[in-house]
Protein backbone atom coordinates (compact mmCIF):
# COMPACT_ATOMS: atom_id res chain seq x y z
CA UNK A 1 0.00 0.00 0.00
CA UNK A 2 2.84 2.32 0.87
CA UNK A 3 4.53 1.59 -2.43
CA UNK A 4 1.42 2.31 -4.45
CA UNK A 5 1.00 5.66 -2.72
CA UNK A 6 4.63 6.63 -3.15
CA UNK A 7 4.62 7.48 -6.88
CA UNK A 8 1.56 9.63 -6.36
CA UNK A 9 3.24 11.47 -3.52
CA UNK A 10 6.41 12.07 -5.52
CA UNK A 11 4.44 13.12 -8.55
CA UNK A 12 2.51 15.64 -6.50
CA UNK A 13 5.70 16.95 -4.96
CA UNK A 14 7.35 17.32 -8.37
CA UNK A 15 4.33 19.19 -9.62
CA UNK A 16 4.38 21.40 -6.56
CA UNK A 17 8.07 22.11 -6.94
CA UNK A 18 7.94 22.92 -10.60
CA UNK A 19 4.88 25.08 -10.20
CA UNK A 20 6.62 26.89 -7.38
CA UNK A 21 9.51 27.50 -9.74
CA UNK A 22 7.52 30.07 -11.63
CA UNK A 23 6.88 31.92 -8.40
CA UNK A 24 10.37 31.52 -7.01
CA UNK A 25 12.09 34.32 -8.86
CA UNK A 26 9.24 36.66 -7.94
CA UNK A 27 9.55 35.65 -4.31
CA UNK A 28 13.28 36.23 -4.38
CA UNK A 29 12.96 39.64 -5.92
CA UNK A 30 10.09 40.60 -3.66
CA UNK A 31 11.79 39.56 -0.45
CA UNK A 32 13.67 42.50 0.86
CA UNK A 33 17.42 42.08 0.64
CA UNK A 34 17.53 43.88 3.96
CA UNK A 35 15.40 41.47 5.92
CA UNK A 36 16.70 37.98 6.56
CA UNK A 37 13.63 37.04 8.57
CA UNK A 38 11.59 36.92 5.36
CA UNK A 39 11.38 33.55 3.60
CA UNK A 40 13.53 33.13 0.53
CA UNK A 41 13.32 30.28 -1.95
CA UNK A 42 15.77 29.03 -4.47
CA UNK A 43 15.53 26.40 -7.17
CA UNK A 44 18.57 24.53 -8.43
CA UNK A 45 18.40 21.93 -11.17
CA UNK A 46 20.91 19.35 -12.32
CA UNK A 47 20.78 17.27 -15.47
CA UNK A 48 22.94 15.04 -17.58
CA UNK A 49 22.86 13.12 -20.84
CA UNK A 50 25.26 10.39 -21.89
CA UNK A 51 26.42 8.27 -24.76
CA UNK A 52 27.50 4.80 -23.60
CA UNK A 53 29.44 2.20 -25.55
CA UNK A 54 30.75 -1.07 -24.17
CA UNK A 55 32.00 -4.45 -25.33
CA UNK A 56 29.74 -6.10 -22.75
CA UNK A 57 26.29 -7.43 -23.50
CA UNK A 58 24.51 -4.29 -22.35
CA UNK A 59 22.52 -1.71 -24.27
CA UNK A 60 24.66 0.96 -25.95
CA UNK A 61 23.62 4.36 -27.16
CA UNK A 62 22.28 7.63 -25.87
CA UNK A 63 20.76 7.91 -22.42
CA UNK A 64 19.06 10.66 -20.52
CA UNK A 65 20.62 10.53 -17.09
CA UNK A 66 18.90 12.14 -14.18
CA UNK A 67 16.95 15.33 -13.92
CA UNK A 68 17.15 16.69 -10.40
CA UNK A 69 15.29 19.63 -8.89
CA UNK A 70 16.13 21.18 -5.55
CA UNK A 71 13.88 23.53 -3.67
CA UNK A 72 15.77 25.30 -0.91
CA UNK A 73 13.86 27.54 1.44
CA UNK A 74 15.25 29.84 4.06
CA UNK A 75 12.35 30.40 6.43
CA UNK A 76 14.13 32.94 8.59
CA UNK A 77 17.48 33.17 10.30
CA UNK A 78 17.40 29.69 11.83
CA UNK A 79 14.86 27.53 10.03
CA UNK A 80 15.44 26.12 6.57
CA UNK A 81 13.94 23.53 4.29
CA UNK A 82 15.62 21.49 1.61
CA UNK A 83 14.09 19.05 -0.83
CA UNK A 84 15.43 17.15 -3.80
CA UNK A 85 13.36 15.31 -6.38
CA UNK A 86 14.83 13.24 -9.21
CA UNK A 87 13.51 11.83 -12.45
CA UNK A 88 15.52 8.91 -13.80
CA UNK A 89 15.11 7.40 -17.25
CA UNK A 90 14.16 3.72 -17.14
CA UNK A 91 13.54 1.25 -19.98
CA UNK A 92 9.97 2.32 -20.64
CA UNK A 93 9.24 5.16 -18.24
CA UNK A 94 10.72 7.59 -15.72
CA UNK A 95 11.17 6.85 -12.05
CA UNK A 96 10.39 9.78 -9.78
CA UNK A 97 11.92 9.81 -6.33
CA UNK A 98 11.98 12.09 -3.32
CA UNK A 99 15.71 11.91 -2.71
CA UNK A 100 15.96 14.29 0.20
CA UNK A 101 13.42 16.10 2.33
CA UNK A 102 14.94 17.98 5.25
CA UNK A 103 13.66 20.56 7.73
CA UNK A 104 16.52 22.03 9.75
CA UNK A 105 16.72 24.34 12.76
CA UNK A 106 20.03 25.99 13.59
CA UNK A 107 20.64 26.64 17.28
CA UNK A 108 24.18 27.73 16.50
CA UNK A 109 27.11 26.66 14.35
CA UNK A 110 27.79 23.94 16.89
CA UNK A 111 24.27 22.56 17.03
CA UNK A 112 21.81 22.10 14.19
CA UNK A 113 18.89 19.73 14.42
CA UNK A 114 17.00 18.39 11.44
CA UNK A 115 14.56 15.68 10.47
CA UNK A 116 13.80 14.04 7.16
CA UNK A 117 15.38 11.95 4.44
CA UNK A 118 19.10 12.36 3.81
CA UNK A 119 22.00 11.06 1.84
CA UNK A 120 23.48 8.90 4.61
CA UNK A 121 26.39 10.91 6.02
CA UNK A 122 28.94 8.15 5.76
CA UNK A 123 32.02 8.60 3.61
CA UNK A 124 32.65 11.45 1.21
CA UNK A 125 31.07 10.89 -2.18
CA UNK A 126 27.59 9.95 -1.04
CA UNK A 127 26.87 13.32 0.52
CA UNK A 128 29.26 15.53 -1.46
CA UNK A 129 28.13 14.84 -5.04
CA UNK A 130 25.32 12.32 -5.17
CA UNK A 131 22.85 13.40 -7.88
CA UNK A 132 24.81 16.40 -9.02
CA UNK A 133 26.70 14.91 -11.97
CA UNK A 134 27.96 18.39 -12.84
CA UNK A 135 29.60 18.65 -9.42
CA UNK A 136 31.72 15.52 -9.79
CA UNK A 137 34.77 15.40 -12.03
CA UNK A 138 33.91 12.00 -13.50
CA UNK A 139 31.01 10.72 -15.59
CA UNK A 140 29.94 8.14 -13.06
CA UNK A 141 30.06 7.50 -9.35
CA UNK A 142 32.32 4.90 -7.77
CA UNK A 143 30.68 1.48 -7.82
CA UNK A 144 30.47 1.31 -4.03
CA UNK A 145 28.19 4.38 -3.94
CA UNK A 146 26.40 3.94 -7.25
CA UNK A 147 22.67 4.58 -7.45
CA UNK A 148 20.95 1.65 -5.81
CA UNK A 149 24.14 0.49 -4.12
CA UNK A 150 23.79 -2.26 -1.55
CA UNK A 151 27.30 -1.70 -0.21
CA UNK A 152 26.49 1.69 1.30
CA UNK A 153 23.05 2.50 2.72
CA UNK A 154 22.57 5.42 0.36
CA UNK A 155 19.65 7.09 2.13
CA UNK A 156 18.71 7.55 5.74
CA UNK A 157 15.36 8.59 7.23
CA UNK A 158 15.30 10.01 10.72
CA UNK A 159 16.76 12.87 12.73
CA UNK A 160 20.23 14.33 12.48
CA UNK A 161 22.28 16.45 14.84
CA UNK A 162 25.17 18.24 13.23
CA UNK A 163 27.53 21.05 13.97
CA UNK A 164 30.98 22.45 13.69
CA UNK A 165 33.60 24.32 15.63
CA UNK A 166 34.81 26.54 12.81
CA UNK A 167 37.10 28.58 15.03
CA UNK A 168 39.13 25.53 16.02
CA UNK A 169 42.33 25.12 14.05
CA UNK A 170 41.22 21.63 13.06
CA UNK A 171 37.88 22.81 11.64
CA UNK A 172 36.08 20.01 13.44
CA UNK A 173 32.60 18.96 12.22
CA UNK A 174 30.25 16.18 13.28
CA UNK A 175 27.00 14.52 12.26
CA UNK A 176 25.02 12.11 14.41
CA UNK A 177 21.87 10.49 13.08
CA UNK A 178 19.22 8.16 14.43
CA UNK A 179 16.50 6.67 12.28
CA UNK A 180 15.12 3.92 10.11
CA UNK A 181 17.57 1.37 8.79
CA UNK A 182 17.48 -0.38 5.45
CA UNK A 183 14.20 -1.50 3.97
CA UNK A 184 13.75 -5.23 3.28
CA UNK A 185 14.74 -4.16 -0.23
CA UNK A 186 18.19 -3.39 1.13
CA UNK A 187 19.03 -0.84 -1.54
CA UNK A 188 16.34 1.43 -0.12
CA UNK A 189 15.82 3.31 3.11
CA UNK A 190 12.81 2.63 5.30
CA UNK A 191 10.85 5.62 4.06
CA UNK A 192 7.58 4.79 5.75
CA UNK A 193 8.99 3.23 8.89
CA UNK A 194 11.66 0.77 9.97
CA UNK A 195 11.15 -2.90 9.22
CA UNK A 196 12.05 -3.80 12.81
CA UNK A 197 12.35 -2.22 16.23
CA UNK A 198 16.10 -1.70 15.98
CA UNK A 199 16.82 1.74 14.64
CA UNK A 200 19.96 2.57 12.72
CA UNK A 201 22.46 5.14 13.91
CA UNK A 202 25.22 6.93 12.09
CA UNK A 203 28.11 9.04 13.29
CA UNK A 204 30.55 10.99 11.20
CA UNK A 205 33.45 13.22 12.21
CA UNK A 206 35.48 15.26 9.84
CA UNK A 207 38.14 17.91 9.95
CA UNK A 208 39.09 20.74 7.61
CA UNK A 209 42.36 21.97 9.15
CA UNK A 210 42.85 25.71 8.81
CA UNK A 211 46.55 25.31 8.09
CA UNK A 212 45.86 22.92 5.21
CA UNK A 213 43.08 24.76 3.41
CA UNK A 214 41.46 22.34 0.96
CA UNK A 215 41.98 19.20 3.04
CA UNK A 216 39.02 17.26 4.41
CA UNK A 217 39.52 14.15 6.57
CA UNK A 218 36.64 12.03 7.81
CA UNK A 219 35.68 8.98 9.81
CA UNK A 220 32.21 7.46 9.85
CA UNK A 221 30.32 4.69 11.59
CA UNK A 222 26.93 3.17 10.84
CA UNK A 223 25.07 0.43 12.68
CA UNK A 224 21.76 -1.26 11.98
CA UNK A 225 19.89 -4.53 12.27
CA UNK A 226 18.50 -5.44 8.87
CA UNK A 227 15.24 -7.39 8.78
CA UNK A 228 14.81 -9.39 5.58
CA UNK A 229 11.71 -11.09 4.20
CA UNK A 230 11.87 -14.87 4.80
CA UNK A 231 15.42 -14.62 6.16
CA UNK A 232 16.89 -14.13 9.61
CA UNK A 233 17.87 -10.62 10.65
CA UNK A 234 21.43 -9.45 10.09
CA UNK A 235 23.50 -7.12 12.27
CA UNK A 236 25.34 -4.61 10.11
CA UNK A 237 28.27 -2.43 11.21
CA UNK A 238 30.07 -0.13 8.80
CA UNK A 239 33.23 1.89 9.33
CA UNK A 240 34.48 4.34 6.73
CA UNK A 241 37.36 6.74 6.29
CA UNK A 242 38.23 9.28 3.65
CA UNK A 243 40.77 11.87 2.66
CA UNK A 244 39.82 14.56 0.17
CA UNK A 245 41.92 17.39 -1.19
CA UNK A 246 39.40 19.57 -2.95
CA UNK A 247 41.73 22.02 -4.64
CA UNK A 248 41.96 20.98 -8.21
CA UNK A 249 45.73 21.15 -8.60
CA UNK A 250 45.47 18.31 -7.80
CA UNK A 251 42.10 16.95 -6.67
CA UNK A 252 42.50 13.79 -4.62
CA UNK A 253 39.73 11.65 -3.13
CA UNK A 254 40.41 8.37 -1.37
CA UNK A 255 37.63 6.57 0.42
CA UNK A 256 37.54 3.20 2.18
CA UNK A 257 34.68 1.32 3.76
CA UNK A 258 34.64 -1.87 5.80
CA UNK A 259 31.33 -3.55 6.60
CA UNK A 260 30.72 -6.55 8.82
CA UNK A 261 27.51 -8.57 8.72
CA UNK A 262 26.45 -11.24 11.17
CA UNK A 263 23.26 -13.21 11.69
CA UNK A 264 21.54 -11.94 14.83
CA UNK A 265 20.61 -15.43 15.99
CA UNK A 266 23.83 -17.19 14.88
CA UNK A 267 27.08 -15.27 15.21
CA UNK A 268 28.99 -18.04 13.45
CA UNK A 269 27.42 -16.91 10.16
CA UNK A 270 29.20 -13.72 9.26
CA UNK A 271 31.14 -12.02 6.53
CA UNK A 272 32.91 -8.80 5.65
CA UNK A 273 32.90 -6.33 2.81
CA UNK A 274 35.83 -4.12 1.84
CA UNK A 275 35.37 -1.39 -0.71
CA UNK A 276 37.58 1.50 -1.74
CA UNK A 277 38.37 3.90 -4.52
CA UNK A 278 41.13 6.41 -5.17
CA UNK A 279 40.59 9.27 -7.60
CA UNK A 280 43.10 11.77 -8.91
CA UNK A 281 42.34 14.77 -11.10
CA UNK A 282 44.25 17.86 -12.13
CA UNK A 283 42.95 21.18 -13.46
CA UNK A 284 45.32 22.10 -16.29
CA UNK A 285 46.58 25.71 -16.41
CA UNK A 286 45.64 26.26 -20.04
CA UNK A 287 42.65 27.48 -22.04
CA UNK A 288 41.32 29.38 -19.01
CA UNK A 289 41.54 26.27 -16.75
CA UNK A 290 38.78 24.48 -18.65
CA UNK A 291 40.39 21.04 -18.85
CA UNK A 292 40.64 18.51 -16.07
CA UNK A 293 41.98 15.01 -16.78
CA UNK A 294 41.24 12.38 -14.17
CA UNK A 295 41.76 8.73 -13.24
CA UNK A 296 40.21 6.42 -10.68
CA UNK A 297 40.91 2.94 -9.37
CA UNK A 298 38.35 1.07 -7.32
CA UNK A 299 37.67 -2.34 -5.84
CA UNK A 300 34.94 -4.10 -3.89
CA UNK A 301 35.35 -7.48 -2.21
CA UNK A 302 32.52 -9.35 -0.51
CA UNK A 303 33.00 -12.54 1.50
CA UNK A 304 30.96 -15.40 0.08
CA UNK A 305 29.89 -16.18 3.63
CA UNK A 306 28.44 -12.69 4.14
CA UNK A 307 24.79 -13.29 5.16
CA UNK A 308 23.57 -9.97 3.76
CA UNK A 309 25.59 -9.42 0.57
CA UNK A 310 27.47 -12.67 -0.08
CA UNK A 311 25.00 -13.90 -2.68
CA UNK A 312 24.62 -10.58 -4.46
CA UNK A 313 27.65 -10.87 -6.75
CA UNK A 314 29.06 -7.47 -5.86
CA UNK A 315 32.79 -8.06 -6.33
CA UNK A 316 34.17 -5.37 -8.58
CA UNK A 317 37.44 -4.10 -10.00
CA UNK A 318 37.53 -0.96 -12.07
CA UNK A 319 39.85 1.59 -13.61
CA UNK A 320 38.73 4.72 -15.41
CA UNK A 321 40.57 7.41 -17.30
CA UNK A 322 38.88 10.52 -18.55
CA UNK A 323 38.87 14.22 -19.15
CA UNK A 324 36.41 16.94 -18.20
CA UNK A 325 36.00 20.06 -20.34
CA UNK A 326 34.19 22.97 -18.65
CA UNK A 327 33.13 24.70 -21.84
CA UNK A 328 30.63 26.86 -19.93
CA UNK A 329 30.31 28.11 -16.35
CA UNK A 330 27.31 25.86 -15.86
CA UNK A 331 27.98 22.90 -18.16
CA UNK A 332 30.74 20.38 -18.70
CA UNK A 333 31.49 17.68 -21.24
CA UNK A 334 33.24 14.55 -19.95
CA UNK A 335 34.77 11.66 -21.88
CA UNK A 336 35.70 8.51 -20.00
CA UNK A 337 37.32 5.16 -20.84
CA UNK A 338 36.48 2.34 -18.45
CA UNK A 339 38.00 -1.07 -17.87
CA UNK A 340 36.17 -3.08 -15.24
CA UNK A 341 35.22 -6.52 -14.04
CA UNK A 342 31.95 -7.36 -12.36
CA UNK A 343 31.71 -10.39 -10.08
CA UNK A 344 34.89 -11.99 -11.50
CA UNK A 345 33.19 -12.59 -14.87
CA UNK A 346 35.98 -11.21 -17.04
CA UNK A 347 37.11 -7.74 -17.88
CA UNK A 348 35.16 -5.45 -20.14
CA UNK A 349 35.92 -2.09 -21.66
CA UNK A 350 33.65 0.81 -22.32
CA UNK A 351 33.45 4.45 -23.27
CA UNK A 352 31.13 7.09 -21.90
CA UNK A 353 30.51 10.63 -23.03
CA UNK A 354 28.45 12.85 -20.79
CA UNK A 355 27.21 16.40 -20.81
CA UNK A 356 26.26 17.57 -17.34
CA UNK A 357 24.79 20.92 -16.39
CA UNK A 358 23.37 22.91 -13.52
CA UNK A 359 20.51 25.41 -13.58
CA UNK A 360 20.99 28.15 -11.04
CA UNK A 361 21.16 31.90 -10.61
CA UNK A 362 24.49 31.79 -8.73
Amino acid at each position, binding site marked *: MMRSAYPRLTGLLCLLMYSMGSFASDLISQSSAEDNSQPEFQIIGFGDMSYVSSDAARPDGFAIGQGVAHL*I*GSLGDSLSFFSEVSATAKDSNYAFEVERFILKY*DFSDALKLSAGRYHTPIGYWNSSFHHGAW*LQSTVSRPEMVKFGSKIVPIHFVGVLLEGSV*PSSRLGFEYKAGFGNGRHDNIARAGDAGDTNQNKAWVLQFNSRP*HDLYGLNLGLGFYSDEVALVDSPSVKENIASAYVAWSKETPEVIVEYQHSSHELVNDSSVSGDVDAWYAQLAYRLPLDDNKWKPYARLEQTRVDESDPLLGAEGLDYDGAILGVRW*DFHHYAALKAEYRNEEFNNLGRESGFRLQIAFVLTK*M
Partner: protein
Amino acid sequence: MAICVVSLTTAAQAGSQESLAPGAIAIVVHKDTQVDNLSMADLRSIFLANQQYWPDRTRITLLVRAPKSDERDFVLDSIYQMTEAQFRQYWIAKMFRAEVPRGPKIVFSTDMTLDLVVAIPGSISFIRSDEAAEGVKIVRIDGKLPSEAGYPLK
Protein backbone atom coordinates in the same frame (compact mmCIF):
# COMPACT_ATOMS: atom_id res chain seq x y z
CA MET B 1 42.12 42.63 24.11
CA ALA B 2 42.04 46.12 22.76
CA ILE B 3 38.81 47.01 21.10
CA CYS B 4 39.13 49.17 18.04
CA VAL B 5 36.10 50.35 16.15
CA VAL B 6 37.06 52.46 13.21
CA SER B 7 34.91 54.42 10.84
CA LEU B 8 36.19 56.66 8.13
CA THR B 9 35.46 59.60 10.37
CA THR B 10 37.54 58.34 13.22
CA ALA B 11 40.27 57.28 10.84
CA ALA B 12 40.34 60.73 9.32
CA GLN B 13 40.39 62.29 12.77
CA ALA B 14 43.43 60.24 13.57
CA GLY B 15 45.32 62.00 10.82
CA SER B 16 47.20 60.83 7.79
CA GLN B 17 48.99 58.12 9.77
CA GLU B 18 45.65 56.35 10.22
CA SER B 19 44.10 57.01 6.81
CA LEU B 20 43.02 53.89 5.00
CA ALA B 21 45.45 52.71 2.42
CA PRO B 22 44.21 52.75 -1.15
CA GLY B 23 44.76 49.40 -2.78
CA ALA B 24 43.83 47.43 0.31
CA ILE B 25 40.54 45.62 0.81
CA ALA B 26 38.74 46.43 4.03
CA ILE B 27 36.43 43.92 5.68
CA VAL B 28 33.33 45.72 6.87
CA VAL B 29 30.58 44.50 9.15
CA HIS B 30 27.33 45.87 10.52
CA LYS B 31 28.14 48.34 13.27
CA ASP B 32 26.49 46.29 16.00
CA THR B 33 28.51 43.15 15.27
CA GLN B 34 30.41 42.20 18.42
CA VAL B 35 33.63 41.46 16.57
CA ASP B 36 36.61 43.76 16.13
CA ASN B 37 39.32 41.40 14.99
CA LEU B 38 39.34 38.24 12.91
CA SER B 39 42.17 35.94 12.08
CA MET B 40 42.64 35.22 8.40
CA ALA B 41 41.50 31.64 9.12
CA ASP B 42 38.33 32.92 10.81
CA LEU B 43 37.66 35.26 7.90
CA ARG B 44 38.04 32.42 5.41
CA SER B 45 35.74 30.25 7.51
CA ILE B 46 33.08 32.99 7.41
CA PHE B 47 33.48 33.63 3.70
CA LEU B 48 33.21 29.87 3.05
CA ALA B 49 30.07 29.75 5.25
CA ASN B 50 31.68 27.16 7.47
CA GLN B 51 30.92 29.68 10.22
CA GLN B 52 27.38 31.01 9.77
CA TYR B 53 26.76 32.73 13.11
CA TRP B 54 28.53 35.47 15.06
CA PRO B 55 29.34 34.66 18.70
CA ASP B 56 26.11 36.40 19.81
CA ARG B 57 24.16 34.01 17.50
CA THR B 58 23.32 36.67 14.93
CA ARG B 59 23.17 35.07 11.51
CA ILE B 60 26.05 36.11 9.27
CA THR B 61 24.94 37.54 5.95
CA LEU B 62 27.70 37.55 3.39
CA LEU B 63 27.60 40.18 0.66
CA VAL B 64 29.80 39.55 -2.37
CA ARG B 65 30.42 41.82 -5.34
CA ALA B 66 29.11 40.68 -8.70
CA PRO B 67 31.58 39.20 -11.21
CA LYS B 68 34.01 41.42 -13.09
CA SER B 69 34.84 43.70 -10.21
CA ASP B 70 38.39 44.18 -8.95
CA GLU B 71 37.24 43.70 -5.36
CA ARG B 72 35.68 40.31 -6.13
CA ASP B 73 38.74 39.17 -8.07
CA PHE B 74 40.96 40.16 -5.16
CA VAL B 75 38.84 38.33 -2.58
CA LEU B 76 38.56 35.20 -4.72
CA ASP B 77 42.32 35.15 -5.08
CA SER B 78 43.35 36.06 -1.53
CA ILE B 79 40.61 34.60 0.70
CA TYR B 80 38.93 31.87 -1.30
CA GLN B 81 42.00 30.96 -3.38
CA MET B 82 39.59 29.98 -6.13
CA THR B 83 38.93 30.87 -9.73
CA GLU B 84 35.56 32.33 -10.69
CA ALA B 85 34.39 28.90 -11.85
CA GLN B 86 35.55 27.21 -8.65
CA PHE B 87 33.79 29.88 -6.60
CA ARG B 88 30.48 29.25 -8.35
CA GLN B 89 30.88 25.50 -8.02
CA TYR B 90 31.75 25.85 -4.35
CA TRP B 91 28.52 27.65 -3.53
CA ILE B 92 26.35 25.45 -5.70
CA ALA B 93 27.86 22.41 -3.95
CA LYS B 94 27.34 24.02 -0.56
CA MET B 95 23.64 24.49 -1.26
CA PHE B 96 23.42 21.05 -2.87
CA ARG B 97 24.69 19.50 0.37
CA ALA B 98 22.05 21.44 2.32
CA GLU B 99 24.79 23.14 4.32
CA VAL B 100 23.48 26.62 3.60
CA PRO B 101 19.95 27.73 2.74
CA ARG B 102 21.20 30.43 0.38
CA GLY B 103 24.32 31.66 -1.27
CA PRO B 104 25.92 35.04 -0.67
CA LYS B 105 23.89 38.11 -1.52
CA ILE B 106 25.25 39.74 -4.65
CA VAL B 107 25.94 43.45 -4.60
CA PHE B 108 26.77 45.58 -7.62
CA SER B 109 28.60 48.59 -6.26
CA THR B 110 30.40 49.95 -3.23
CA ASP B 111 27.41 52.15 -2.42
CA MET B 112 25.08 49.16 -2.49
CA THR B 113 27.52 47.20 -0.32
CA LEU B 114 27.67 49.96 2.27
CA ASP B 115 23.91 50.50 2.24
CA LEU B 116 23.24 46.83 2.90
CA VAL B 117 25.95 46.43 5.53
CA VAL B 118 24.41 49.37 7.36
CA ALA B 119 20.93 47.89 7.01
CA ILE B 120 21.46 44.16 7.68
CA PRO B 121 22.40 43.08 11.21
CA GLY B 122 25.14 40.46 11.06
CA SER B 123 26.24 41.37 7.55
CA ILE B 124 29.84 41.27 6.37
CA SER B 125 31.40 42.35 3.11
CA PHE B 126 34.47 43.93 1.57
CA ILE B 127 35.25 47.22 -0.11
CA ARG B 128 38.31 49.17 -1.17
CA SER B 129 39.68 50.58 2.03
CA ASP B 130 39.70 54.14 0.66
CA GLU B 131 35.95 53.89 0.01
CA ALA B 132 34.93 53.21 3.59
CA ALA B 133 32.12 55.35 4.98
CA GLU B 134 30.34 56.07 8.20
CA GLY B 135 27.92 53.59 9.64
CA VAL B 136 29.96 50.44 9.16
CA LYS B 137 32.70 48.87 11.23
CA ILE B 138 36.05 47.96 9.75
CA VAL B 139 37.37 44.76 11.23
CA ARG B 140 41.04 44.16 11.96
CA ILE B 141 42.47 41.11 10.22
CA ASP B 142 45.17 39.30 12.15
CA GLY B 143 45.19 42.35 14.43
CA LYS B 144 45.88 44.85 11.65
CA LEU B 145 43.88 47.59 9.99
CA PRO B 146 44.17 48.20 6.24
CA SER B 147 46.43 51.19 6.88
CA GLU B 148 48.92 49.21 8.90
CA ALA B 149 51.99 47.39 7.73
CA GLY B 150 51.49 43.66 7.50
CA TYR B 151 47.77 43.87 6.74
CA PRO B 152 47.06 40.63 4.86
CA LEU B 153 44.51 41.91 2.32
CA LYS B 154 46.73 44.23 0.31
